[in-house]
């Protein structure tokens, strides 16, 4: 069995939040008697990640993704549960653990704003105790993959968001961590830069074998990088498995797209499933999985000469996720 570099059991994080009603009297009351509310950000999740895997962590805002990543990187203490990352309990923040992990957050910088990125990287070289040869070869590789050449000499505050993100990656990976937690690494980047960052992450994983746990709101990131996804919602783990099976597991329907010849009527399709759209002779139907074969056969048989084309597909991954997060689908627990 392959080594589990991330091993999580029943991990729970409950925040205690001060709560106050509106109005002066409530304000005065809260001076002498503060009331608190407990918010469960992560509720008893368990999963494991093998060495070299790239796993997508999916969930809407407030689902508990970032809280989980912060616990796994040792920034937060959990309320209960256990976790081991590269053999260490993260929140003990032991030296060997800190040398073996990285956490990159798309909306936060770890670089010193006022000085050149190259100088920040030199400091990191000393902190991680990287021999000169190893530092140079890692930096050379990161420079090549991220096209960092023109950026390293500039003060970080003068870099664009995309440029800064590239340098953040270099700073986060200069010590060649065994596990990298990437929290929204493409947040706010334009399409072209998103694509470049995706390419970099995939290539870096291929070359170095770094295990990657990635959160992103952009499904393109997940589809491009992750064979496996973990879906979390309201702190609960809803799905853990191959991306390809996500639709099967979480969406009890398929999508049939019917293209009709000009002028052909399509009213009868309304009886075969839920019509999602109907535009210029193209009708998109949502049909229960168990009825797909029978309904497809009926369409082909009954439309005969009116039918120009027909296709049957799993729903788009974005639609599946949207439906789950909107509460339309209640998938089985993994």
């Amino acid at each position: 069995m392959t080594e589990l570099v991330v091993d999580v059991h029943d991990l729970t994080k409950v925040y205690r939040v001060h709560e106050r009603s509106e109005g002066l009297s409530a304000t005065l009351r809260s001076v002498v008697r503060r009331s608190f509310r407990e918010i469960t950000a992560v509720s008893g999740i368990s999963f494991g990640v093998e060495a070299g895997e790239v796993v997508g962590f999916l969930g809407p805002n407030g689902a508990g993704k970032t809280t989980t990543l912060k616990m796994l990187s040792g920034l937060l203490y959990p309320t209960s549960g256990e976790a081991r990352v590269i053999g260490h309990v993260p929140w003990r923040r032991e030296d060997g653990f800190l040398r073996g992990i990285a956490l990159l957050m798309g909306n936060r910088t770890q670089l010193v704003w006022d000085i050149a990125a190259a100088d920040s990287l030199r400091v990191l070289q000393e902190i991680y105790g990287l021999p000169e040869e190893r530092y140079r070869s890692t930096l050379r590789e990161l420079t090549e993959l991220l096209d960092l050449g023109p950026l390293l000499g500039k003060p970080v505050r003068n870099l664009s968001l995309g440029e800064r993100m590239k340098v953040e990656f270099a700073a986060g990976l200069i010590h060649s961590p065994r596990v990298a937690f990437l929290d929204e690494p493409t947040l706010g980047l334009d399409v072209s830069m998103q694509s470049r960052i995706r390419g970099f992450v995939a290539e870096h994983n291929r070359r170095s074998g770094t295990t990657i746990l990635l959160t992103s709101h952009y499904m393109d990131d997940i589809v491009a990088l992750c064979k496996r996804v973990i879906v979390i919602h309201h702190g609960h783990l809803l799905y853990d498995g191959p991306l390809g099976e996500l639709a099967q597991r979480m969406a009890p329907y398929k999508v049939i797209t019917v293209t009709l010849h000009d002028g052909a009527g399509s009213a009868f399709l309304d009886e075969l499933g839920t019509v999602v759209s109907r535009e210029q002779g193209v009708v998109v139907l949502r049909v229960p999985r168990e009825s797909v074969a029978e309904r497809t056969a009926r369409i082909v048989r009954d439309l005969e000469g009116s039918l120009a084309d027909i296709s049957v597909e799993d729903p788009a991954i974005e639609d599946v996720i949207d439906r789950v997060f909107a509460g339309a689908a209640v998938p089985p627990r993994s």
Partner: protein
Amino acid sequence: MIGVYRALAVQQIQIMLQYRVATFLYALFSFVRPIIFLAAWLSVAASQGGRLGSFQRSDLAAYYALSILVTHLTTSFDFFEFEWEVRQGRLSPKLLRPLHPLHYAIVNNVLWKVVTAAMVIPVAVLVALTFGARFHVGPIDIVLGTVSVVLGAALSFVFGWVVASAAFWTTRVQALVHFYQRTAFIFAGQIAPLALLPGPLSAIAYALPFGYMLGVPTDILRGAHDVTTSLLLIAAQAVWLLVAAVLYRIVWNAGLREYSAVGA
């Protein structure tokens, strides 16, 4: 670790050079206040025949001229930066590295003091000459005074971090910092040399840690105490430093459990 400190020092010098004016303006704090108090106490002494308790005019001048230097060397300013780091989530990247955040602050602290000493020392000398300071200093006083200044700086630094760690629990550390600084203002030897504080206040000052950050090292450095007294005061500084270090360890470890990296 030497390599880490050297790299952090280079980084810090680059930042200080970016903000030259701010760097030197902060250094003003070291000597503005002592000069004001010196002027005030000298006028009080003048109205009392040139003496104030056991202090002659020249002793007051010596005390405040030296306190310019000692204030500069022992001042602690990390609470402001630390609160900002916690609130903005800037502490998180530091916590993710195999280097305690304290090391960044040590380099920052020492470097700022060394660089701006070039500005503070001439002012202290000028004040000593202008106001006719008289020192009763032998080599042993300089040795013991230096040890006491180092201990005072360490004590101020560690206590500063204990106060700063309140940022783990509250987003309004400023209130606590102001309380801490106002208390230090009275009992550290800023408002008056410890020996000139009215009876009970003087006793309280020697029982609290603040005097060991400024008044005690200043007095030892100007040769105000015999060797035995100086050694006893240095021992008291060491005890307070130990207390501060234990307190810091407790507060820091408890604080990390509270850290929610808000917004980070």
